């Protein structure tokens, strides 16, 4: 809007007055277009902001749909979201900065632009804080998912210790039975943890093999397969054909085989190093599996796995929730298994039980454990045990047991 009009008068006032009248008319005529122009500018500015918020909303919707389709994890989506918001804010800031860098800004223009810059900063800070809070929540949830199976395993070990100590105190168990109980609980917990770790290690390559996104934190082979099959059934963008399903099964078996191999190798190495009795008890498992491995070598990997899944060589039945070793009998019996349980072939089971029995009766069994027998205490003990036996980890790495194999 024309706020000030400067006029120069000459000596000829008559002509000047008519000029002023004409100028006044012209100025009056200009007011409306100028007002319209300012309105247009204001609308354009609002439209730019609207466009920006529309773009952000569209981007967020895309991210949400990708999370819903499990193409990316929630944490990845939040990370992309934060990056995108930062980029948009940078662009908007740059425009405002360029205006403010101008030397001849009017007070009105400078105030308006400066206010927009401050508002943008406040909006962006609030958005960033909200994104960080959401990411912290997701990270905590993922950490809990990661830790839960391990915590359960250590709780199970702790429960074994507790029952052994109670049995000793109450006189319902002798030392040999109590030691057997302790060794069984430690061994079971260790196997559970190893299975969990290796299943998670195998999940990434398996997902890549199936053309899926990287698994979320805490997801194992089973989760990846479940995702793949659900995408196939519910018609997700990436169809899983029959060949892909076969590949999935094969890859899963390979991953499980790698996990099993790693467990046996680790336990075998630990036994060879002559470590503590609880881990030493697992030496039978290593020896037994060597025989099973030989059988696998003769009959093929699928034969070995098939026999394992058919319980032809043994089993913990009918429900292995509390552990149950079968007596010798003819034929077979159906089994009901739970998640993360493991079925051992008969030679391994027998060897393990024999070794534990011999160790408890004849030799010395030194189980150094101090403090309460709860999950965290046992976890600390177990960490120390692993630190004192670096050969376990080294052998797992040397034998390349942590790398999932494909057939």
């Amino acid at each position, binding site marked *: 809007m024309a706020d000030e009009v400067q006029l120069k008068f000459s000596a000829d006032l008559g002509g000047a007055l008519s000029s002023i009248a004409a100028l006044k008319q012209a100025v009056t005529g200009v007011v409306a277009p100028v007002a319209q122009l300012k309105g247009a500018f204001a609308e354009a500015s609002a439209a730019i902001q609207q466009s920006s918020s529309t773009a952000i909303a569209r981007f967020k919707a895309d991210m949400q749909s990708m999370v819903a389709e499990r193409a990316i994890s929630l944490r990845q989506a939040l990370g992309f979201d934060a990056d995108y918001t930062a980029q948009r804010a940078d662009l908007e800031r740059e425009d405002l900065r360029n205006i403010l860098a101008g030397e001849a800004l009017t007070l009105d223009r400078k*105030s308006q632009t*400066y206010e927009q810059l401050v508002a943008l900063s406040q909006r962006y800070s609030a958005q960033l804080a909200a994104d960080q809070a959401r990411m912290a929540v997701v990270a905590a949830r993922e950490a809990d998912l990661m830790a839960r199976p391990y915590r359960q395993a250590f709780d199970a070990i702790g429960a074994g210790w507790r029952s052994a100590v109670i049995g000793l105190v109450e006189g319902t168990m002798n030392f040999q039975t109590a030691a057997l109980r302790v060794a069984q609980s430690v061994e079971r917990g260790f196997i559970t943890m190893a299975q969990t770790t290796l299943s998670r290690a195998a999940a990434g390559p398996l997902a890549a093999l199936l053309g899926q996104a990287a698994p979320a934190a805490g997801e194992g082979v089973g989760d990846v397969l479940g995702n793949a099959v659900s995408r196939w059934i519910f018609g997700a963008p990436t169809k899983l054909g029959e060949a892909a399903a076969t590949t999935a099964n094969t890859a899963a078996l390979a991953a499980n085989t790698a996990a099993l191999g790693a467990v046996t190798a680790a336990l075998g190495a630990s036994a060879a190093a002559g470590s503590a009795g609880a881990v030493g008890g697992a030496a039978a498992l290593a020896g037994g599996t060597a025989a099973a491995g030989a059988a696998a070598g003769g009959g093929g990997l699928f034969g070995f796995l098939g026999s394992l899944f058919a319980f032809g060589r043994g089993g913990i039945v009918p429900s292995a929730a509390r552990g149950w070793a079968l007596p010798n009998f003819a034929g077979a019996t159906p089994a009901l298994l739970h998640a993360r349980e493991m079925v051992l072939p008969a030679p391994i089971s027998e060897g393990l039980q024999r070794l534990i029995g011999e160790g408890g009766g004849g030799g010395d069994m030194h189980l150094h454990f101090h403090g309460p027998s709860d999950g965290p205490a046992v976890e600390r003990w177990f960490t120390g045990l692993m630190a004192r036996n670096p050969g376990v980890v080294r052998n797992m790495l040397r034998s390349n047991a942590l790398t999932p194999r494909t057939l």
Partner: protein
Amino acid sequence: MRRRLPPRYGFLLSLAASTAATPAIAAGPADGPGCLGVPLGECLAWLRTTMKLDEGALRSALAQRHATDVNGKPLGGGLATVEASLPGQVPGATDTFVLLLHLRPDDTVRGVDSNLVHGLIDSRTEAVYDSSGLYEIVWRAIGRRCPGMTKLELYRFFENMVKPRITHLRQDLSTGINGLHRILSSSGAVPFCGGVTFSYASRLQWRGGQNPEAAAKRDEFAYIELR
């Protein structure tokens, strides 16, 4: 068995702990160089020790502080924006300040602008001045140029020297119940200590009737300029 340490060791330990654990906290203008007339890097380092800066925004601002047009002509003078926050008056809240650092070609800071939490035209008491963030920004921007500046001195300077020079320009952009009105206020440059000039400007905009006190959507923005 635990052995009791002689008293002198206890004293030395507590002294070491106190000197090691407590960071140097700048509490006034005499504690640092400020920003006016000092190199940009020094100014930023000083601000970092006294405020929480948004480092992400600062990085991009520094990269574009001497922006040019397609012909290579500088877009105005050099400008770097610093987004900073300070603890607010309400516990748990923070006040956001955006500092405009006007630069010379050699990256020396020639001027500092900063927004205030609220306008100062109606401010009278120390508490209200405190809540605007005026002193918090001024002592950080000026630094040792005015080492003896106190809060009350600054508020009195504003009340007695700046306020009387503030002029107002009213714009009634439209009328009616949803009319748009604006008052632009500016003091112009007022000489301050250490060879610095101080300016205050604000923009009050509202919709509704003529009286801003009865405004439906009242929006006020105020800032200071130090040169």
